[in-house]
């Protein structure tokens, strides 16, 4: 049964990717990308990677198509063009890469086998000991926020870098401050009454759900990153329906930009506190006499830092992109 679901999902993925090769319109490609994200998220669920599936659903099927749509809106759909000459070089390169990949798979441990080295060397400790060492049920969160917390700091820094990079690239010369949207009332000609009413009902719950995901990540799938994305999506939904100027009055760009840095600093400071006590960076045992409690506090703080940065950076990126769209319109 599992095998059947697996194969069907994989075939759908191949079909989507194939369609992406053929389709030329940007709007259709964007939709297919979203489908691809959703399908891969479903596949991750069948592979027991619930946290990853959650993230991929939020990012692959949500944020990245949204950014693509905003881009397409700003640059126009463009005319689909007929294919040029057969891209021989591309075919050769791709074939070589594919051949190399196939060669690489030949000596791999078979799919799903429990005695593969990947499942016998480092990972067992996480599964066996994280219960008593960290004391939270979600092993992915344990590894993410404690055993490999430095990687996660790097991850937060990556998303922070993305925010900085987008602002740096899209800041229009001559404009004071960074990419601040202009306040042009009535840039949306038509009110979306039904959508606005429904979203007004939903947005509080979206934000509430984000908080649930944020603080429940130790027990179930979820955590700072997913929560941040969901929180930002609430803000983005508001922005899409009420216009950029309105959302900017509610959630000020300057505040969000500062919060992006604050999240990283919160993470970093959590790590630094251990150093002040002479222990290694990100050693949470400094927070409480009981090491398990210390881990709890540390993970809570660190995840909060992740959530704040992710929510702010995604909002900042949305502001910057939507601003470009409004400039293209006006």
């Amino acid at each position, binding site marked *: 049964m599992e095998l059947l679901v697996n194969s069907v999902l994989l075939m759908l993925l191949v079909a989507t990717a194939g369609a992406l090769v053929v389709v030329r319109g940007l709007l259709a490609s964007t939709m297919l990308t979203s489908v691809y994200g959703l399908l891969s998220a479903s596949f991750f669920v069948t592979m027991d990677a619930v946290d990853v599936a959650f993230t991929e659903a939020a990012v692959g099927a949500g944020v990245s198509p949204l950014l693509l749509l905003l881009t397409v809106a700003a640059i126009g759909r463009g005319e689909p063009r007929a294919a040029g000459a057969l891209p021989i070089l591309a075919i050769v390169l791709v074939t070589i890469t594919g051949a*190399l*990949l196939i*060669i*690489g*798979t*030949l*000596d*791999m*441990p078979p799919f799903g086998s429990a005695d*593969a*080295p*990947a*499942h*016998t*060397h*480092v*990972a067992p*400790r*996480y599964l066996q000991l994280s219960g008593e060492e960290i004391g939270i049920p979600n092993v992915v969160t344990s590894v993410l926020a*404690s*055993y*490999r*917390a*430095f*990687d996660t*700091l*790097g*991850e937060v*820094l*990556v998303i*922070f*870098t*993305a925010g*900085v*990079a*987008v*602002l*740096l*690239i899209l*800041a229009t*010369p*001559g*404009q004071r*401050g*960074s990419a601040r949207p202009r306040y042009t009332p009535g840039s949306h000609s038509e009110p979306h009454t039904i959508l606005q009413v429904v979203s007004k009902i939903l947005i509080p719950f979206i934000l509430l759900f984000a908080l649930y995901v944020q603080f429940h990540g130790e027990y179930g799938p979820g955590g700072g990153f997913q929560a941040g994305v969901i929180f930002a999506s609430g803000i983005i939904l508001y922005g899409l329906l009420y216009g950029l100027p309105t959302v900017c009055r509610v959630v000020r760009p300057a505040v969000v*930009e*500062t919060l992006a*840095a*604050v999240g*990283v*600093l919160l993470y*970093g400071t959590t790590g*630094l506190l251990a*150093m002040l006590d002479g222990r*290694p*960076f*990100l*050693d*949470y*045992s400094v927070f409480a006499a009981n090491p398990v409690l210390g881990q709890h506090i540390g993970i809570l703080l660190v995840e909060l830092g992740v959530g704040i940065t992710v929510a702010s950076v995604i909002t900042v990126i949305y502001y910057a992109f939507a601003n470009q769209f409004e400039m293209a319109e006006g």
Partner: protein
Amino acid sequence: MLSQLALLPVLLPLIGAPACAVLRRPTAAWAFASTVAVLAFVAAAALLQATARQGVIHYAFGGWAAPWGIEYRIDLLNAFVLLLVSGIAAVVLVASRASVWHDIAENRRTLFYVACLLCLAGWLGIAATGDAFNLFVFLEISSLATYALVACGRDRQALVAAFNYLVMGTIGATFILIGIGFIYMLTGTLNMADLAQRLPGLGESRTVFAAYAFIVVGVCLKLALFPLHLWLPGAYTQAPAIVTAYVAATATKVALYVLIRFSFSVFHLESSRLALSLEAVFISLGVVAVFAGSLVAVFASNLKRALAWSSIAQIGYMAVGVGIGTVAGVQASLIHLFNHALMKGALFLALAAIAMRVGGNELQALRGIGRRMPLTSAAIVVAGISLIGVPGTAGFISKWYLVTAALAREQWLLALLIVAGSLLTAVYIWRFVETAWLDQNPAQPATPPQEAPPLLLAGTLLLALANIYFGLDTRLPVGTAAGAAAGLLGDSAAGLLGHPPAPLPGAGAP
């Protein structure tokens, strides 16, 4: 305190970048970023001294022991690259103010320095880490920041260059990710030291071969080794002047470090069946890169573009050193890594000054520049003859060790080609000398000297003089490189060359 030293060079820019973003005034951001870079440099110098004295320094994040947590294992090679990168970054950032104020619009300056610090954090994180996946994460931090910095160039072509860089860089990073995934499948670990122990036991696994191939191709994309160099000329030429100096002297060096680290300390290339074929690949690609890069540089009409192509040629020399694959070869490669950073740092800083005064780096516009900006032009010449490899300069030392390493393997032709490549270098450096002093611009009356702003000039001269200093006192690069290469190849025979790895004269040297 000492126990925290291993982390300090990385941690400073890593925490410094978000802190810098909170600053509102660009001048404050510049001062802050420069301070952070200088402090990181001091920390790296102390770290190098500590590693030279007591060997490998371990640092386990979060207190979790090695294969389960992330670990820094700072040996001489890590410390050497950390010192070089943070040193160049410190000089360039301190010197950058005037040029950045000239090139970058006011509302972008603070973010510009944040991106610079993020870049630095990424590079230092790559150079310090002992975990394969952690390396990938920091690689992406530095890459993303670099794309944005390149896109800040004044011309619209900068945007295209940045986009191409982004696409190729991401392909490279994804290849590295595939490679890491393969070796993780086979060994179950991501820790480099642990990998090094477990990989040889796998014998002739085709998956190991594919993993190494993907990692090498990915790293070579970042390294811009011919023929994977396509992003480099555009990115270097179109980036803001100061960014070129910042990136050219560091990013490819870090990529070379990654190549060496994976080849010799993770995959143990020297003892593998792959060694022979890879030797041929690196040496031949390296030699082609030397000639192709130099030839394009000779005919380029823009000095910045010429030097960008020259970087491709110089990367070729480093690849040759890796290809020779002996302790001497790797040592030569590392020495050249160090010296080339000094040369290109000085050259591109000087070009930044010229771009400020003249408005561009077209050779045609540089006529008579030797009289208008005598010190800056002199710095170009000094760094240029170092690039050629004239005795008495740092470049000579690199070439010397490279030729010696080739001869030790009885590769006569290779040695000859290395020397011949230098002659081509001499041609394009001569073209600058000719334009700057001999070719008077008839339309333009003799203008009074108009030197670069003081800090920029100081940075340029410091790096140019470093080229002379390290041509005469070679203990720091040669000694450290010898120790690092010996450590990599697990061979204590480095002493044969007469350079014991340990003693380091004041690690705070420029």
